[in-house]
């Protein structure tokens, strides 16, 4: 019996695959998503967006729009308070309040095409749309700057006149301001050992530059928000977001009102992937409601989602790796330039700290640049920042393996990071199964199957993600019939009602079906961080376990009363309370007697984990490259991951398969195509090509279950790390198939054909 199987037998519920509690609503169309809300007197809001990538707003005249029958209000930045630069907690990242507010409604300058400048509320969508055309905005058009390296040039047009470069020499330090005006919002650097000496020791060096395009999270549900500003000054939001508490905090801050006056009701959410952590619409809908006294709903169309919500950074990465003949890495250097979009805040820090994390390297130098450009402000996208760095570093690793004449997995294993080794940030790695995972890759039938046929190749890559912890709250209450209700503050995007209910059931000795989980609004459950950072099943799970344990302990006391013994004498086993003398009571019996044995049984708890438990993923992919069309077909895909204890294996597999699908899109097709004046030329699902069923094979998953010591059941966050390896794995497979290394994403057919024109330089470096 493997240790994984042994562990599984410890649990009755964890590791099983119950069907989800919200499944019936979701297969019958009854589940209510953000846009499904309907309220009496509801007005439709629409947003006027800048047609220019960079311009000064000289004036806005809304009088004609306001005169249109059916138009009830128009708001602009003048209707929002003016904010100073100030950091507020946006949960996954700290955010600057002025930036958040400016991105929601431009005041002096528009900084990307699609930047909001005004919004209308009207009695119908058609009238609102017509009104937008009647708002006159006087722009002074400015030259835009459209890519990171250009924006770094001291002579390039500047987005923010007062912005100077912030320099951080050590991660987690506040750093210093250089006082130098620039589009470089920040430069971070961290260093381990003596990189120069490390490179001098190397027998082989690989040095290359890689670039990636802007891509979007691509959730199918467009952003939507509904708000009602009541006469007593209370604001209610019906939000499609990754967390009601985040929407409450951001909306209150932008509107300059106390958080306690805002109640956010989470609706079902149609995907987020990080893109629905930040608000775009809620404060605007609330301001329109304040002006009209009526509820207002704003729903984006798909083009708006592309041009006005967060994509992730386009990047340029320069990588240098040095190794001894035996494969030992002696030094590594990366220079990462991440586009932040119109405002500072790219995930370059995460890119810088994750890229080399799968390896133990004594000498590392990482330089990261957060650079503003005239494009939409980037938002988190699944392991934000890590995939771009991994594309570069993992491509370079496989090229290094080829130069050394080593198997690419052997090279990775030779340098694998082990628990206790220092990560590039200097923090020691918690028990995590990177080595076990790479060994599983090496011995898997996929890796050992011959590659047959022309134009075919195999690639591998690995990836790291730190995962988030943060606080969550949960309330567990016992019902008289022996069931349990579970309320948490975590929006359920991918099945977390089930994965959380299972944890309560495990503690209480009942079935997952006996637990009724629900997602509370901000008035009915304690503060809970957003659903992001792979944190929900882990951190909200901790709160659920703690609350369920309190309930269990209370049930034991009540059982003792009923069995006329001491609580210490009660033995609790699989939902049965035994008095040690042959008498026992079921969970149902104790539940039914709760009121007369001391009152209702309910408990709340919050989590605040000090340790989190990071994650590694490794992927093997076979591709076939069509030399005529340049199309890359994915023939076989196997994804390995240290998932900790898989709470609900089907949902773990689903997370991995979904991330691989997004990774395949990122690798092969997805990109924003920009015109010279900064217009996204492909702002529709027709031209921004996401993978369909026909673009993907079945994706095999191999779960390595190294328990996470930071969770009582060993649960680890699983949703993000799986998007880190695909791009490099596919690039390595393409190199193996064609003898050409592609260093730009996406590897679209045109770029593949271009590469095939070049002489082959590479034959085996998958």
């Amino acid at each position: 019996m493997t240790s994984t199987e042994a562990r599984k037998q410890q649990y009755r519920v964890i590791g099983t695959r119950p069907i989800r509690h919200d499944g019936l609503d979701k297969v019958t169309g009854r589940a209510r998503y953000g846009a499904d809300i309907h309220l009496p007197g509801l007005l439709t809001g629409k947003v006027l967006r800048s047609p220019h990538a960079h311009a000064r707003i000289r004036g806005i005249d809304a009088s004609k729009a306001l005169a249109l029958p059916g138009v009830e209000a128009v708001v602009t930045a003048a209707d929002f308070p003016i904010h100073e630069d100030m950091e507020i907690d946006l949960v996954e990242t700290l955010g600057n309040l002025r930036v958040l507010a400016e991105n929601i409604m431009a005041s002096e300058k528009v900084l990307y095409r699609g930047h909001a400048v005004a919004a209308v509320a009207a009695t119908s969508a058609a009238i609102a749309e017509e009104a937008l055309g009647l708002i006159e905005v006087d722009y002074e058009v400015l030259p835009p700057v459209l890519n990171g390296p250009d924006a770094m040039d001291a002579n390039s047009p500047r987005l923010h006149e007062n912005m100077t470069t912030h320099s951080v020499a050590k991660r987690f330090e506040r750093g210093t301001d250089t006082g130098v005006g620039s589009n470089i919002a920040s430069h971070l650097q961290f260093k381990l050992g003596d990189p120069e000496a490390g490179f001098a020791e190397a027998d082989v060096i690989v040095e290359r530059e890689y670039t990636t395009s802007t891509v979007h999270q691509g959730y199918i549900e467009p952003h939507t928000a509904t708000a009602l500003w009541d006469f007593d000054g209370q604001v209610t939001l019906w939000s499609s977001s990754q967390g009601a508490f985040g929407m409450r905090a951001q909306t209150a801050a932008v509107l300059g009102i106390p958080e306690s006056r805002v109640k956010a009701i989470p609706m079902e959410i149609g995907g987020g992937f990080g893109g629905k952590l930040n608000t775009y619409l809620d404060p605007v809908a609330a301001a329109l409601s304040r002006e009209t006294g009526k509820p207002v709903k704003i729903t984006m169309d798909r083009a708006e989602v592309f041009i006005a919500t967060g994509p992730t950074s386009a990047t340029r990465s320069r990588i240098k790796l040095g190794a001894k003949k035996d494969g030992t890495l002696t030094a590594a250097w990366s220079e990462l330039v991440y586009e932040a979009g119109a405002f500072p805040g790219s995930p370059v820090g995460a890119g810088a700290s994750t890229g080399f994390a799968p390896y133990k390297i004594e000498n590392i130098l990482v330089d990261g640049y957060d650079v503003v450009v005239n494009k939409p402000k980037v938002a988190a996208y699944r392991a934000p920042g890590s995939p771009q760095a991994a594309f570069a570093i993992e491509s370079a690793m496989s090229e290094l393996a080829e130069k050394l004449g080593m198997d690419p997995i052997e090279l990775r294993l030779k340098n694998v990071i082990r628990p206790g080794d220092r990560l590039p940030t200097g923090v020691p790695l918690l028990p995590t199964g990177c080595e076990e995972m790479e060994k599983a890759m090496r011995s898997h039938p996929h890796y050992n199957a011959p590659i047959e046929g022309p134009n075919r190749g195999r690639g591998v890559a690995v990836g790291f993600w730190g995962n988030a912890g943060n606080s969550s709250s949960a309330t567990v209450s016992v019902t008289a019939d022996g069931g349990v209700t579970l309320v948490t503050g975590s929006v359920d995007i991918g099945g977390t009602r089930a994965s959380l209910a299972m944890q309560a059931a495990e503690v209480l000795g009942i079935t997952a079906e006996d637990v009724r989980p629900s997602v509370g609004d901000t008035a009915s459950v304690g503060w809970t961080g957003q659903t992001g950072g792979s944190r929900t099943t882990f951190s909200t799970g901790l709160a659920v376990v703690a609350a369920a344990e309190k309930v269990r302990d209370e049930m034991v006391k009540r059982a003792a009363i009923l069995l006329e013994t001491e609580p210490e004498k009660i033995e609790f086993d699989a939902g049965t309370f035994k008095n040690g003398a042959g008498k026992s009571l079921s969970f149902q019996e104790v539940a039914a007697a709760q009121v007369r044995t001391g009152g209702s049984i309910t408990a709340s708890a919050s989590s605040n984990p000090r340790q989190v438990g990071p994650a590694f993923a490794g992927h093997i992919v076979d591709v076939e490259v069509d030399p005529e069309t340049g199309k890359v077909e994915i023939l076989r895909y196997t994804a390995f991951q240290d998932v900790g204890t898989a709470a609900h294996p089907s949902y773990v597999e689903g997370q991995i398969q979904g991330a691989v699908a997004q990774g395949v899109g990122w690798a092969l097709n997805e990109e924003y195509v920009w015109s010279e004046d900064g217009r996204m030329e492909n702002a529709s699902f027709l031209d921004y090509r996401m993978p369909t069923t026909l673009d993907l094979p079945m994706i095999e998953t191999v779960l390595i279950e190294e328990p996470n010591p930071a969770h009582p059941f060993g649960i680890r966050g699983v949703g993000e790390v799986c998007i880190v390896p695909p791009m490099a794995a596919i690039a390595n497979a393409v190199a193996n198939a064609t003898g050409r290394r592609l260093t730009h994403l996406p590897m679209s057919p045109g770029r593949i054909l271009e590469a095939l024109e070049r002489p082959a330089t590479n034959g085996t470096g998958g």
Partner: protein
Amino acid sequence: MANETPVSIKVNGKEEQRDVEPRLLLAHFLREDLGLTGTHIGCDTTQCGACTVLIDGKSVKACTVFAVQADGSEVTTIEGVGAEGELHPVQEGFWEEHGLQCGYCTPGMIMSGIHLLNENKNPSEQEIREGISGNFCRCTGYQHIVNAIQYAAKKG
């Protein structure tokens, strides 16, 4: 309003008569006029499939047709699938096989799946993939969705 046209559409077995603007899309008619919000909108421009319904038994993206074009036809939405207290095998398949994460694509996927199985009782994996290739899912990587439809096909 002046330029409204009367339509009569049988939706989920019930005759619905309304006066609608000619530019009103069927998807919006279902959601706004009839309150059938199970038909989701992901793009409005006929690419994502979230709005898929059956019109006279055929799967159609409800944002590709105007309500007036559906005049006189029979429309089935996700709310009209399965009987009271009994799920359609495709619905059951999605639930049992974990064929959804966020669930936003699910109604459209189910409608495409039903149409597919109506035409082909025993589809291969490739035929299932082709049958639902007009429906995007961004969450699942499609594998559990394919499993869900296979489950339904087996159940018959």
